[in-house]
């Protein structure tokens, strides 16, 4: 019996903060009222809670400095403005990277350079063929017309992919259409790679820089929404 009374007192004691704050439903409030009427210890408990409640209520309520909102406004809304221009910055970066890539590729022309010399200028043209790896399927890459007095010719294969091994063959064609086929030469897999990589990385870096610049360009502030 004593134990159950103790449990009941403990449960009612837990209700006292809500009682003080006026948050209890009517039924529980009546229970607490009845307890307070019947038990002197209950009154002591209530006074103890009230002392603490009064002390807490008596504390000065601090207002956060306005600088917090200003900083928050900058971080939240400024980021939104920047997020709005991300598509434009992406487009600008991509465009500059593409233009740079094309210009550098056309200027530097990374690829496999073929060179050959001839003993006479009796041939009318030279046809350049390429086969992939060890296959025998030669594909015509291009044709160069012979030039009077020219003994040295070059052809640049800019379409070679890095890491691939190619076999080249040059075919000399006489004015009457007879073909004279050269020896086959093989290119190394990484022959064109350094030049190609340099161009790709340069284009990429310029593109990223352009994207960052455009992204930071639009820093227009939104209207101030300072709470009062």
């Amino acid at each position: 019996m004593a134990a159950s009374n103790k449990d009941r007192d403990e449960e009612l004691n837990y209700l006292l903060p809500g009682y003080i704050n006026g948050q209890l439903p009517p039924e529980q409030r009546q229970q607490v009222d009845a307890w307070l009427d019947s038990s002197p210890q209950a009154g002591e408990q209530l006074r103890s809670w009230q002392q603490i409640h009064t002390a807490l209520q008596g504390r000065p309520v601090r207002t956060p400095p306005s600088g917090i909102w200003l900083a928050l406004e900058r971080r939240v809304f400024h980021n939104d403005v920047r997020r709005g221009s991300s598509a434009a910055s992406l487009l600008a970066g991509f465009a500059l990277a593409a233009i740079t890539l094309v210009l550098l590729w056309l200027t530097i022309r990374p690829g496999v350079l073929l060179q050959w010399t001839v003993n006479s200028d009796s041939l009318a043209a030279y046809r350049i063929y390429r086969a992939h790896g060890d296959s025998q399927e030669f594909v015509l890459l291009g044709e160069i017309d012979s030039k009077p007095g020219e003994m040295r010719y070059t052809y640049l294969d800019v379409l070679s992919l890095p890491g691939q091994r190619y076999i080249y063959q040059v075919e000399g064609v006489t004015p009457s259409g007879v073909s004279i086929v050269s020896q086959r030469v093989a290119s190394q897999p990484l022959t064109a790679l350094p030049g190609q990589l340099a161009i790709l990385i340069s284009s990429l870096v310029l593109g990223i820089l352009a994207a960052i610049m455009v992204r930071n360009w639009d820093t227009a502030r939104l209207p101030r929404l300072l709470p009062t």
Partner: protein
Amino acid sequence: MNQETLTNDYKREEAVDEVRLASVADRELIRLVAARSHEAFAELYRRFSAPLFNFLLSLVSDQHAAEDLLQEVFLAIWKGAGHYRGAAAVKTWLFNIAYKQAVSHLRRRKEVLVDDLDQIAAAPGSPGLSGDPIQNRIIIQALERLTPQHRAALELVLYYKMSYREAAEVLACPVGTVKSRVSYARRQLQAMIHASGQSAEDRY
């Protein structure tokens, strides 16, 4: 239409928004924040920045840290408003974010907070229960000596008028734990008041 007219139009629209938002319920406000409404975010800040700031200040006992944490709390609200599902009251949800930020800050600071109230009881300038303002000061000093967990539980229930269930949601712990923390905190504070009264009697 010149710039001045545009500005005046904007100010009128903003004023209308503020009046409209002032009457919007908390849950609707969070929904608008999730939809990236700057005005709703500003209104939310108007409503909750002061109670959250005071709650943080009470937990970390450091003005600058509380200011930084308040900023982080609202930044988290801005980013996470879309995750609010309405299971808890908005006030509970916000206080939970603030509590987690404060606990994380205290862990980083690695501050050891003790429950020992004897130092305050023996401290000079605690003349006992001679008047309410002094007694209040003793209670507040004693409160600051509690662990953040006990202090938070007591304040949420007694000062911020939350039920034990709401306080448990803020503190992310069972209701029974909140009850025992509140009860422990009250007993400690009561012991402090008693000890200071006793020391005053001894002196006179």
